[in-house]
């Protein structure tokens, strides 16, 4: 579904992504793990058209989308749940969901209910300003907002960042649920252990280069990855 070939991205004069190739098959969960500053976010931002890539190819459903405008990329069915949630604090929960469907002209009512089924908490807070929600609720809203676009591929940038452990588990369950309903997921995580457990395939990014790749569970057992990213958390 999404194929990235030899992608280079410069960010503020520094080569942040130095020629990576990633394949995200349809209906899979693929994760990109790595330390801070490895180039994970930059990769997602390049796919979403928020930063211009220097060279390479980003093929989505057979079409090179590199260099296209963010609006066109969203229209083609890719959405990004940005790092830090970035819900619109001055809009209500319901408005945040509606704005996720900004490019759609069909009836969105049913999809709002679907999001409420996934996140009953959002239904309770429908008329509240998004800025008054807790961090976990904001993350749910950010995911729900992305779903409202009816995307084929959802990219998530550190959805577990700064959330309580129970909420993190909940978010990971929801990610799997969304995937089961047929949406492809490209997930970036620092919580490598959790991400690899739910991922079909994983890539490890180190200072702009891919160092490892493999099936999620294989990577979980790889000695080097255990040492570098999982620490003792495998127990």
């Amino acid at each position: 579904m999404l194929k990235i070939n030899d992608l280079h991205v410069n960010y503020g004069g520094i080569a942040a992504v130095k020629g990576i190739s990633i394949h995200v098959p349809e209906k899979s969960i693929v994760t990109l793990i790595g330390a801070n500053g490895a180039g994970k976010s930059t990769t997602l931002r390049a796919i979403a058209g928020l930063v211009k890539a220097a060279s390479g190819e980003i093929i989505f459903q057979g079409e090179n989308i590199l260099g296209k405008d963010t609006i066109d990329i969203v229209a083609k069915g890719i959405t990004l749940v940005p790092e830090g949630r970035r819900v619109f604090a001055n809009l209500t929960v319901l408005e945040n969901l509606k704005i996720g469907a900004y490019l759609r002209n069909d009836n969105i009512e049913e999809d709002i209910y679907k999001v409420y089924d996934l996140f009953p908490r959002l239904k309770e807070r429908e008329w509240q300003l998004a800025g008054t929600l807790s961090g976990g609720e904001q993350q749910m809203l950010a995911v729900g907002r992305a779903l409202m676009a009816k995307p084929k591929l959802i990219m998530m940038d550190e959805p577990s960042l700064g959330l309580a452990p129970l909420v993190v588990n909940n978010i990971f369950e929801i990610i799997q649920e969304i995937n089961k309903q047929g949406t492809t997921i490209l997930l970036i995580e620092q919580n490598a252990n959790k991400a690899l457990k739910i991922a079909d395939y994983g890539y490890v990014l180190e200072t702009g280069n891919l160092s490892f790749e493999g099936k999620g569970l294989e990577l979980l057992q790889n000695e080097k990855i255990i040492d570098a990213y999982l620490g003792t958390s495998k127990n």
Partner: protein
Amino acid sequence: MTIELFMQQLANGISIGSLYALLAIGYTMVYGILRLINFAHGDIFMMAAYFMVFSIINFKLPWYIGAVIVIVASVGLGLLLERTAYRPLRDAPRMSIMISAIGASFFLENLATYLFTGVPKGFPDIKVLTKPVSIGNISLSVSTIITPFVTIILLYVVLFITNKTKIGMAMRAVSKDFETARLMGININKVIATTFIIGSSLAAIGAILWGSKYPSVMPLMGVMPGLKCFIAAVLGGIGNTTGAVLGGFILGMAEIMLVTFLQPLTGYRDAIAFVILIIVLLVKPTGLLGEKVTDKV
């Protein structure tokens, strides 16, 4: 002081206040979205007054057709301003855009002086608006009476657009976060252009009502109203539309009451706005209805 004089001045205060309010909405909306004080807003107002002079006096059009042309032309000018002076600086530091706004303002003032000379032109006498109406012993012009109603109706229209429509929702989203708004598929430039369309059309309507009250059109006529309406927007809480209207009313009323009750200080009429600005900045910089802080990490 007679009760008649007081009532007359009260009506004047409300009327001038609502004119300030119309212009202040334009300042506050553009600020809300771009964090930019559009210094050229007062000059759009000035150009709108000239457009009215030309369409009615030079082209002898009926006033209502002239009014439509003035609104359309002012919107065109507002969009041109946004396209040439602000859009190229979208990613530039705020100070650069501010300087560009001041430059655009000077440019329009000097362009008007060059094209139309500095000699004041008479604003066309629109009988429907200037006709005096007597209520008891008070005599008011039609424009004085209808201006507050026009302002309130337009405030409702603007509030409806920002709170109940899709483009309004996009405006509020863009005002908070450009990048995430783009991720929703929102065309930022279209949204910003829409705020300039609204602001410029209100400035044009304001200019027509203003001209019926103070029928003298000159290149620098937008400077003082522009500054005062910016202050009205700050007083109401910049970024807040209702606040801008409230600030406009307060400012207009304060001016007229100064003239009425403290006649020796009449010469300081224009100064009162700046006194208010200093007090607001010292006491409550967010203004009366300043943006609620709802951000939470």
